[in-house]
């Protein structure tokens, strides 16, 4: 379940945000603090998560302190789904 979610997120980030479909992103790779996802792309990720997983990431959660890896993002989504 988690693996599937991580793979869905990784696919979206590589394809739509980085525009490099072949780019592999490790589950623990820093996303925000590394500059991989820049501030202008954070909204795209938030909108995708909302449409795909049915949970909302608040704008005040769009920072490296809340999630900085696919693993942490998946955990955040699952926490929200469980609520």
């Amino acid at each position: 379940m988690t693996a599937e979610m991580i793979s869905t997120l990784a696919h979206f980030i590589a394809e739509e945000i980085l525009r490099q479909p072949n780019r592999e992103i490790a589950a623990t790779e820093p996303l925000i603090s590394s500059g991989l996802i820049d501030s202008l792309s954070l909204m795209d990720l938030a909108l995708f998560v909302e449409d795909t997983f049915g949970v909302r990431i608040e704008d005040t959660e769009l920072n490296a302190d809340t999630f900085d890896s696919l693993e942490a993002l998946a955990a955040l989504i699952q926490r929200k789904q469980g609520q």
Partner: protein
Amino acid sequence: MSTFFDALRNHYERHPEKTAIWLQIARRADTPITYRRLLENAHAYAQAYAARGIQPGEVVILILQHGEALLAAFWGAVLHGAIPSILPFLTEKLSPQRYKKDLTALIGVTRPAAIVTYPEFAPVVQEALTPNDSVRAVLLPAETPPPSPPDFSRLAGRLRQPEDIVLLQHSSGTTGLQKGVALSHRAVFNQLQAYSEAIRLDRARDVIVSWLPLYHDMGLIASFLLPVLEGVPLVLMSPFDWVRAPYRLLQAVSHYRGTLTWMPNFAYMFCAQKIRDRHLEGVDLSSWRAVINCSEPVRPESHQVFYERFQPYGLRYTALQTSYAMAENTFAVTQSDLSRPPVLDAIQRTAFLTQHRAIPAEDESDRLVMMSSGRPIANTRVRIVDDQGRDVPPRTVGEIAIRSNCMLTGYYNRPDLTEKAFLDGWYLTGDYGYMVDGELFVCGRKKEIIIVGGKNIYPQDIESLVYEVPGTHPGRAVAFGIDDPHTGTEEVVVVAESDNPDPTFRQNLALAIQQHVSKNAPITLRRVLIVDRQWIIKTSSGKPARTANKAKYLAHQG
């Protein structure tokens, strides 16, 4: 009014309880800041500067996040007669090492007497200091005395003269930080007077709403100094909050009946594409009389997309306007006529590309639609010149040269750069454009600068970063910008040569370049192409030719 000090005193004495700024911070209630509160807070900083021995006329660098401390530290410097310069704050992705290096270089050129910053950031600032540099104080907001009423008859800022430098503006990156644009009180007031006329500023009714950072001319001049000095209320949000929730801008316009906003072209696309309907419930944009597109190339498609998205919420088509501006002219050079949409000019694409002439289009298949940036504001003259500095006829593309009474005093402590920027009293902008019936159409750049989301990026800075990555070779990489119609701005591209043909090696090299540049530059680098030796076209002096390599890259990408 002859100095900032006089203007502040006037507001403080005439209407201390008038709200100067509505400060917005995500998750907090908006803070109304009256002139009394603004200047009493500022007074605390003026006292702190004096106590630390900062002299009027010395530079104070402000490295503070969006918030009341930044506002107070800025106006406090003015009250004390010191010269404030706001720098970008370190973002979470930017390497602290790079930031320190750039700051050290900036201190070397600008020679500030003090730096104001937050406790969390003070260690980075301390490490950027070097023995015998000019910095005598690193001041934290908590070290200022409590706010108190300013005594205007005693504060050192009262002695500043209109021709004295009042502030410095820097653009980003290693190169940009070396060029602090120094502006005098007089230059800023001359700009505000001419620009207020151009936008028909209505001091009784206008409300300015902004998300722009204050370290940039559009944010600092149009969306901070203009409202505060002219007595027009300002609703100020953080760029950090806006980029995560662009709907805040529209909600603020609706709530405060905002009338004027400035933003770069990409922001039109960003707002149109990334706001959900649920965030627009009850939003009424009918008060917005001008949303002024400025600081990167203006695109009619972006206006169209923005209009279609927000027209159902009361946005008027005539509200979408344009301006051509630069820090060297304080801010605006031109402004479109607010009573009608900006002038569009359909020209022949082929003649434009091959002869650099803007000839009215005849058929659909060979057409390019240009959008005017408006007419020169009253105090600024514009000429279009060829490479010999001679005027060219209307509809001929040339370099835009300007002359006004609101020009920079100089690049601070860089007389060499200042001298190079002028030709017989005319400032050469490095931008290409043409004029028709008094309207200026900006259509390209002579200077090698990439503008990403309104931020100026110097390609040589990006190339220097590329050479720091193992596996690259100095002189064998090139950086340039390409248009991205979807985002409405430019995207940075790096092409680097490698002698190693192995695809895995090349993939890893591209990745390493992306990561290193993104960590050390104010942009995220996505497009890297690794090519064989001698792919990159060089100029006769052996430097990578950016325009030619861009054309080659675009052909390569198909």
